[in-house]
């Protein structure tokens, strides 16, 4: 039985300008562009004037237009200027509260056993109006009916209920609103009840983050999951076990979302609405195995397994929405009460898999070990002719320390085993219907108001997918060499694995030219990829002070290198990835990892117009001028035809773009330290990543002024031409003028994403047993814990531990930072 509770905080936030600084930055941008300043709020003077009100624009106290008697929501709102500046991050966040309760019980006798546990987690997030609750229970039991028959089951139920807005890593995430909204905008208008926002002139197009979180407070996601299995096991003769298991996994997701008008917004939605979505998935598996253990002449141990497995999965979803509700009470806003825009949609899919498999293990006195496995898998995702794949694997182990010639090392080497493995595995993740060419009906993608109606379209059909029947399993061959060793009375342990994985017939859906249509192209077996790496575990545990002080340390290090070795028949093919606001930040092709950052190389900032004029122009533009980036003119011409580029042209264009960074780390690792003394125990866990790059896309908003977002301190104080700089050569940013050519993908945006983070510190105290026995309590443990206490990094964003992956790997679009939690817990054993 345990209880833990504590608070969570967002650990970091951007250092942004206040109202006066922001106005100054706007004026700096005017000066940089050589335009006389003119701003709807700050006037047209030689320096900006902070108004008393921003709606009506740039008005002062006493102006008849700000007379509160005129106030009429939503047609005539009045926004007071926040002269100090709204700290949006502060307004939108709070100390979150976490509460978690556990109960677990185990029991049983000789012929039966059971275990059950229950868990309840309730978390108020660090963003206001967000809450997450999870209920879990588990029940496992088995019973021996006769000597040769055993039954058992496992059952787990999870229910999740979340409320609020959880959008992450996107322009419309709560985090984005913390830096996209200008500081002069107050949270509320003069009514103190209705929100203020970007409706006031020149306030950009960010939502009021407080309003956005408030309006989403009833958005409700519910997730139910039930999974379990039951089995029968027969042991007809000694050493033989025949087991038949039926498992199932059912998930159900329900969501209700509310659209509430945001009149204070510059691009307002004025009509309320409601949408629901529901989906469920059921996957079952039927697994039958027979295992036979036997020995020959005692020293030769064999273990043989044969089996079959069938898996089937089915997914269904339905979505519906309506608009225009008489009341915005969430109890009223159900589908039936919406008046217009009745819309619904659905989808379903299925797949199945059937496998035959066998395994043979051989063990000679723990010295010589061998294993051979074989799988034959059939997938419904492939056409009949290509359905099955065969995947063998072999491994050998050598218990070196058991050899007699190793007797001399016993004093310091307790155990040494060398391993070597070669195996093949398959992948069929290509969507469920890759072999079919289909047409689909859709009210939008194939709809048109052919009869001239103003309010309804006729639905037709469009080519939806292109199929390919020739596709089969993707195969990955893994070669792994490893060792396990224990030294110094087993105090020091070492596990090392060096591996290489080669994927061939890689399932990849190459982009097809537009002229072949826009139906989704099929996956085909075309690419090849290579991954190499190692994993190292190094542990040390010992004791001191006569066993009173126990301590241990464990270091894990992992390295991998990913390389695409073939993409298609065209060796020069590349795929642009990571597209955000019309800029692609990455791509991949043969010889690169998936993906890598791609763009211009910045050679500095032009310090003089003369220096800029001497550099080749950027495309057909007048971008080159003092204060702008100097993009490197790469060697792009092969003048002597030897295949090596040896000459530069006279223009900076896409030919000058190169790979500028790699989001894949060179090394990741963790260090876990445990110390126990008497009733006290201390755990410290570090985690780190080294050598990965990040592009912080948020900087495009706050450093370069994409839209009228708030700006970073650097944009005002450290940009080229800033009056705060003694020498422009010290500028860390180009001049603040919102020039889009300064915001293209370039090395200036690439940052070192390496970090070392103290993920966890926990101090516990277990009460002495004699004290407890009086209360019939076996154990009581108290602990205090801090997660994410500090992070050492040079990265400028909120959190270097990004959750972006795949094509968007390494791109930070405004992710929620990992929270810092302060927790107290109590565990009681009865």
């Amino acid at each position, binding site marked *: 039985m345990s209880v833990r509770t504590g608070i969570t905080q967002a650990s970091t936030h951007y250092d942004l300008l206040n109202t006066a600084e922001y106005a100054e930055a706007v004026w700096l941008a005017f000066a940089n562009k050589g335009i006389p300043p003119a701003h709807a709020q700050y006037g047209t003077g030689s320096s900006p004037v902070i108004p008393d009100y921003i709606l*009506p*624009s740039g*008005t002062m106290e006493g102006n008849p*237009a700000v007379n509160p008697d*005129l106030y009429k929501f939503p*047609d*005539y709102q009045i926004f007071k200027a926040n002269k100090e500046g709204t700290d949006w991050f502060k307004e939108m966040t709070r100390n979150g509260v976490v509460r978690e309760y556990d109960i677990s019980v185990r029991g049983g006798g000789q012929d039966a056993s059971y275990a059950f546990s229950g868990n309840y987690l309730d978390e108020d997030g660090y963003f206001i109006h967000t809450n997450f609750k999870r209920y879990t229970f588990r029940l496992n039991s088995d019973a021996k009916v006769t000597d040769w*028959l055993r039954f058992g089951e496992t059952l787990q139920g999870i229910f999740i209920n979340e409320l609020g807005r959880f959008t992450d890593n996107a322009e419309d995430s709560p985090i984005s609103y913390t830096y996209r909204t200008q500081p002069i905008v107050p949270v509320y208008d003069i009514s103190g009840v209705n929100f203020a926002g970007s409706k006031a*002139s020149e306030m950009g197009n960010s939502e009021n983050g407080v309003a956005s979180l408030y309006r989403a407070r009833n958005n409700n996601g519910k997730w139910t999951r039930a999974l379990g299995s039951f089995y029968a096991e027969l042991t*007809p003769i000694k050493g033989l076990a*025949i087991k*038949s298991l039926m498992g199932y996994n059912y998930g159900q997701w329900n969501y209700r979302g509310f*659209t509430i008008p945001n009149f204070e917004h*510059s*691009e*307002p*939605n004025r*009509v309320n609405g409601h949408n629901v979505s529901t989906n469920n998935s059921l996957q079952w598996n039927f697994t*039958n195995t027979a295992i036979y253990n036997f020995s020959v002449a005692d020293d030769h141990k064999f273990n043989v397994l044969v089996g079959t497995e*069938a898996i089937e999965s089915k997914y269904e979803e339905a979505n519906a929405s309506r608009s*225009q509700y008489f009341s915005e009470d969430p109890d009223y806003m159900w589908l039936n009460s919406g008046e*217009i*825009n009745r*819309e619904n949609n659905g989808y379903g*899919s*299925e*797949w199945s898999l059937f496998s035959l498999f066998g395994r043979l293990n051989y063990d000679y006195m723990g010295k010589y070990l061998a294993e051979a496995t074989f799988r034959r898998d059939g997938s*419904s995702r492939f056409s009949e002719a290509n359905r099955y794949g065969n995947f063998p694997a072999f491994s050998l182990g050598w218990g070196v320390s058991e050899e007699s010639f190793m007797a001399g090392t016993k004093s310091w080497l307790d155990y040494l085993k060398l391993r070597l493995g070669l195996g093949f595995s398959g992948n069929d993740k290509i969507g469920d219907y890759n072999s*079919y*060419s*289909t047409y*689909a*009906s859709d*009210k*939008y993608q*194939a*709809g*048109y108001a052919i*009869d*001239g109606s*103003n*309010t309804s379209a*006729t*639905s*037709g*059909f469009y*080519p939806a*997918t292109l199929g390919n029947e020739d596709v089969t399993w993707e195969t990955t061959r893994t070669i792994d060499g490893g060792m396990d060793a224990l030294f110094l009375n087993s105090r020091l342990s070492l596990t090392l694995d060096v591996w290489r994985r080669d994927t061939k017939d890689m399932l990849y859906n190459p982009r097809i*030219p*537009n*002229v072949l*249509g*826009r139906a989704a192209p099929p996956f085909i077996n075309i690419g090849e990829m290579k991954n190499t790496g190692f994993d190292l575990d190094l542990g040390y545990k010992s004791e001191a002070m006569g066993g009173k002080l126990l301590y241990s340390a464990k270091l894990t290090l992992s390295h991998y290198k990913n390389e695409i070795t073939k993409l298609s028949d*065209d060796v020069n*093919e590349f795929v642009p990835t990571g597209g955000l*606001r*019309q800029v692609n930040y990455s791509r991949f092709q043969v010889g690169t990892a998936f993906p890598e950052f791609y763009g211009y190389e910045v050679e500095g900032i032009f310090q003089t117009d003369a220096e800029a004029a001497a550099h080749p122009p950027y495309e*057909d533009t007048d971008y080159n001028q003092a204060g702008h980036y100097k993009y490197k003119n790469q060697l792009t011409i092969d003048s002597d035809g030897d295949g090596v580029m040896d000459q530069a042209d006279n223009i900076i264009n896409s030919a000058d773009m190169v790979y500028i960074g790699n989001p894949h780390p060179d090394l990741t690792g963790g260090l876990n330290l445990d110390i126990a003394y008497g009733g006290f125990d201390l755990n410290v866990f570090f985690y780190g990543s080294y050598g990965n790059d990040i592009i912080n896309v948020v900087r495009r908003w706050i450093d370069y002024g994409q*839209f009228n977002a708030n700006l970073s301190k650097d944009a005002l104080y450290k940009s080229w031409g800033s009056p705060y700089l003694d020498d422009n050569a010290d500028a860390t940013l180009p001049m603040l003028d919102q020039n*889009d050519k300064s915001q293209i993908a370039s090395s200036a945006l690439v940052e070192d994403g390496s970090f070392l983070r103290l993920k966890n510190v926990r101090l516990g105290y277990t009460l002495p047993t004699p004290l407890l026995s009086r209360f019939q309590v076996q154990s009581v443990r108290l602990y205090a814990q801090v997660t994410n206490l500090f992070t050492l990094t040079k990265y400028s964003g909120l959190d270097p531990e990004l959750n972006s992956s795949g094509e968007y790997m390494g791109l930070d679009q405004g992710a929620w930072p990992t929270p810092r939690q302060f927790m107290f817990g109590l565990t009681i054993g009865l």
Partner: protein
Amino acid sequence: MKKLSILFAALLVLVIINSCSDDFFDKKPLGSTSENVFYSAKGIDALLIGTYAIVKGSYLWDVSWGASIQNWTYGSAASDDAYKGSEITDQIPVNDIERWSVTPSNGYPADKWRLTLGHGVVRANKTLKVINATEAEGNITADQANSFRAEARFLRGLFYFEAWLVFGDYIPLFTEDTEDPAAVSNQNDPGAVLAFIIEDFKFAWENLPETQALVGKPTKYAAMGIAARAYMQELMYAEAKPLLENIILSGNYSLMPYFIDNFEIVTNNNDESIFEIQACVNDINESLNAEMGIGLNWPHGGDIGMCCGFHQPSQNLVNAYKVDPVSGLPLFTTFNNVDLANDQGITSDQPFVVATDPVDPRLDFTVGRRGIPYKDWGINRGSNWIRKQLDGGPYMPVAKPFFNKSQRYTLSTTTGWQTGINANNYRYLRYSHILLWRAEIAAFENDLITARNYVNQIRDRADNKVVMGKVLITTLPASVYPWGPGSTDADYMDGTTGPYVDWTQPAANYLIGLYDPFANKEEAMRAVQWEQRLEFATEGRRFFDLRRWDNLPAGMRVDMVQTLNDFAQGDLRVREFMRGAIFTERDKYMPVPEDQINLQPGVLVQNPDYL
């Protein structure tokens, strides 16, 4: 007991063996179907609707605003008619279109390529394939097949025409019979693209009916009209003339009483319309069945606020509506010397007096400017209604596709973020086009009477209606709502807005005169060209018109390079945006999307002007 356990084991083995049959792997796609289902008249109808869907001019999110059927970027923002608008940091690729510095990686032309060729032509070809197969199977008659084919080929012709306007001759030509469209080069013999387009339209006009019960479908005359426009691009007047004559002589079309009828939802599909892009709203979420290609081009600021303030008319265009105070005719050579007074840099609560210079009445149906009643939305407040004057100038996003406040939520979208989306059809081809093209041919042929006749018909109609309501107040702070202090929408409806608007007076000093007989063909051609600009302004045509008039013989020629560079120079009086921008011959066409060349190496080539 041992026997029993062996029996159990045997039973299990039996179950295992039986567990996998072929049915187990039989997983067919749910909710979609395969091609042979469409081998019937009903099936072909469904595929045709799917092909019509593409004329809507966008396909979010596979294709966005760069593919607009209204060509607001290439046809309008790149010309002297309009600006990109909004602010410089939004939709950055359009900055380069407006400033004539497009690079082959620009995402906007890539959108146009993808929509016209990738969606449009491919769907038309697939439909044609199914028509052929259905006819071969005997499920439809040859006549039925030809009538279906006529629609599909009309659509294919339309998509190719749109691609040709933007990319010129560097587009690959492929049909339903092309084995591998990816192997088709985009290097074409001179005239081959036009011939290909005409062939489709010719088949269409030979097989389409004179009228259609479903108004969204093309008629014989729609095919002739777009074919005529294609010929006009190449100044092939002799070929265009009979087509235009045919349309005029059919008697099926007439000018609507008012210029504004071409831009109102209530007069969608009217007597003047020959082919319209149908728009409908509130049928699906976000109303995606209206034209999303212009989804960003709605007023952004203040109480009218929507998304996102793009496509604002230029000062040059506004100046073009100035007329001679005596004759009421355009100021052909001097119009842009001095700007018609604008409110650039003047806030809404600072006074601004509407210019009293005489102007063509079409100005205020085309451009939303400060101090003029803006449809029924209220008195145009100027600055407060503009996203960012400094970047996009003082005028509202172009007014023609916009709707009335009284139609909000019934004929405009109630969901989504592109909240200006509405049911206004884009008149892709209308009778006034036919008349002014016919007038252009007449001018070229020195048929001065015909040229004057048609131009004056258009001007005469333009005089039929003016924007009413002289605004008497000169400051328009947010408290003046919407027709003066204390007013409501109802005040507009019943025309009683007290001392703030005088509804007996026109909003500005409108004047339009008819032409006296032209002295020569040069004078006639100039009048026709001006009339096309004034009548069709901001409808995404100006750039392409300038391009073709650049090829006319001296005397009639409009020097495109000089016209646009003069425009950019003059525009500095209003904004800084065009400083340093230079239009050159190269900029007449968009580059072939770099991405597509990379996907079809050795097949597609870049327009040599971009190498």
